[in-house]
């Protein structure tokens, strides 16, 4: 059984694989068409595996925002592999490329799909952070809806007291998902809002409290300190909290996403990534580099604007989404 078949079978054994795969395939249609289309095109044009081939392969990977360092390492490994297996025909390198890419996604623990780590008995707190315009509030709305449909009692805390209309935006999402939103006026101290949120969530016996925060660029030291303070308040009020610190990352972001992941991690110890806006042509390849260099897993992906367009990240499905064309071709 070839690698592709193994990969495919493994994926197809997943629960709800059919449904998840359709969502990903639909959502990532644009990403996939360009990405694997390019690889296929590349393989068709180059019959021989040579320097020019590798140079173009580099470009294809870079065009997916995979990141220069990661790409260089990957291509280096590929070259070694090609030498080792004595591959001359580009057709035969296809599998090796996929294999290597998949390896980065999976890392060492390849079978593990990392969902949210929530407290089953007590209140769980999720802190949501990110730069301006990444999609924090929207992702919170979708996440609240999802958790609620799983039978959890969810409360939202409107910690973005800075941006105009942010509180109202979260309130609309609260209504849509049918969950309570704890808020104070615009301009109030975000840590105080979160504190209120925790008190209220405890009083309501809620299962999950999701804390929104104002978007901030990671090089603004004061704003990052403010975020650390918010986290300290959560730590103090709820044991073992925050259970998750989710960094919301726009899939169209380039190399700066690495800086974001690094700096937000330093301030709040990020436990997972929500990759938004993956339904465009952007591929979000930078999550490869983030996973590789900082070992932060992707937990959710945003594949559309509807309330149920947030999918739990499934590494198999994500890779399948990227390579679906290639996989189907080998059938």
């Amino acid at each position: 059984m070839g690698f592709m078949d193994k990969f495919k079978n493994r994926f197809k054994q997943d629960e709800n694989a059919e449904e998840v795969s359709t969502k990903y395939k639909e959502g990532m249609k644009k990403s996939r068409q360009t990405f694997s289309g390019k690889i296929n095109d590349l393989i068709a044009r180059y019959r021989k595996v040579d320097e020019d081939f590798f140079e173009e392969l580099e470009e294809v990977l870079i065009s997916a925002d995979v990141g220069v360092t990661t790409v260089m390492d990957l291509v280096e490994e590929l070259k070694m592999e090609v030498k080792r297996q004595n591959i001359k025909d580009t057709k035969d390198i296809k599998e090796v490329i996929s294999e290597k890419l998949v390896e980065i996604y999976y890392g060492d623990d390849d079978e593990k799909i990392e969902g949210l780590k929530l407290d089953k008995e007590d209140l769980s707190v999720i802190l949501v952070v990110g730069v301006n315009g990444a999609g924090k509030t929207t992702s919170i709305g979708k996440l609240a809806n999802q958790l609620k449909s799983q039978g959890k009692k969810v409360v939202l805390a409107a910690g973005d007291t800075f941006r105009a209309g942010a509180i109202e935006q979260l309130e609309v999402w609260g209504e849509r998902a049918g969950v309570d939103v704890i808020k104070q006026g615009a301009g109030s101290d975000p840590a105080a809002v979160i504190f209120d949120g925790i008190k209220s969530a405890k009083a309501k016996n809620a299962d999950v409290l999701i804390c929104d925060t104002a978007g901030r660029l990671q090089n603004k030291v004061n704003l990052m300190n403010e975020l650390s303070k918010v986290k300290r308040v959560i730590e103090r009020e709820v044991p073992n909290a925050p259970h998750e610190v989710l960094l919301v990352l726009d899939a169209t972001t380039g190399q700066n996403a690495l800086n974001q992941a690094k700096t937000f991690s330093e301030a709040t110890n990020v436990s997972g990534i929500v990759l938004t806006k993956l339904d465009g042509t952007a591929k979000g390849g930078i999550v490869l580099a983030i996973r590789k260099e900082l070992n932060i897993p992707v937990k959710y992906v945003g594949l559309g604007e509807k309330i149920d367009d947030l999918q739990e990240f499934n590494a198999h499905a994500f890779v399948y989404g990227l390579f679906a064309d290639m996989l189907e071709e080998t059938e």
Partner: protein
Amino acid sequence: MAFEGLADRLQSTIKKITGKGKVSEQDVKEMTREVRLALLEADVNFKVVKDLIKRIKERAIGQEVMESLTPGQQVIKVVKEELTELMGGENSKIAVADRAPTVVMMVGLQGAGKTTTTGKLANLLRKKHNRSPLLVACDVYRPAAIKQLETLGEQLTMPVFSMGTEANPVDIATKAIEKAREEHHDYVIIDTAGRLHVDNELMDELQEIKANVKPDEIFLVVDSMTGQDAVNVAESFNEQLDLSGVVLTKLDGDTRGGAALSIKAVTDKPIKFAGMGEKLDQLEAFHPERMASRILGMGDVLSLIEKAQTNVDEKQAKELEEKMRTMSFTFDDFLEQMGQVKNMGPLDDLMAMIPGASKMKGLKNAQLDEKQLSHVEAIIQSMTKKERQDPSLMNASRKKRIAKGSGTSVSQVNRLLKQFDEMKKMMKQMTNMQKGKKGKGMKFPFM
């Protein structure tokens, strides 16, 4: 993981070249490879990089670089020139319609910063151009987007036109123009909903708004952190709407902003403004040249190089080197050197241009007093020709005369003589050290 500037990247290659009499084609190839990586790391689209590298290579293999004394710096200069040319000149004009109101339409992806930029632009129009804009809330999709614009309107005490979330954006825009006419607003800024460039339905909606309100400006608002996809986004928006300009947001972050270059390259539309902060007055004219430096990650060292190049005569520098080596450096030469350094501009500015200089403790506290320099000048000018050639002639009465002539004190004259002596000793050491490796990367005449 940290980004390396182009200069750092080129360091190792330059080291290899120093000591060689001539730069080979292979050296140039290595250097252009580093340039390529630096640009890609800055998120410049790979196709744009490819074209650029081709041109840079041509110029580099030509006389310009290979025959230069400082090939590394020359490569950087060529790259900077190419980037600057591609970025185009500064252009932060906003159209004025023959018949008021002038209509400006803001478009872009979700989360790029359209609504905030709409508020900032209105503020700029009022403050700098003395205009009275009407803001129009056409984003009926994103929850509370209208509320966001209304809040900004309140903060600016500026009217916002909205018709709720049930209305059709095309109707809202059309009615807003009527209203602006009635109320004598000379500008109408239409905030549209964020949308993916591949969302045909919503792109059609924009085209419809455009057909109905005939905007004088259509600005694409782009997040400066955008990666390789910036090209696709800008291309489709431009194809479908024929943009008139671009606004780059979140430039106060630490992104290198290569997207700017990509967008300019594929659309050939000017980047007019840059969002530089969260406050409503933080929208600035876009400076293409500064952006070029930023993309290369090299601070303003380029301006420094340029200054050095325009102000330091290569021939003079060589003569000086010769004098240093033969220890025939005189006060006359010293004076000349000082003149050249002074030509380059205020010393503090020069120091600020050197990357990392602000972090070096010694330099930070160094007294860069321009007055002291003019004292030194006066002292030397009060010397006779002979004294300048041969400081050993100095005695108490000569010193007294010089101090009197220059309006300084004998102790100041003594200090200068001592410093000059030390400098000569240092030069001797330096030239001895340099004998091994000739032609250092860049020679500062005053070192």
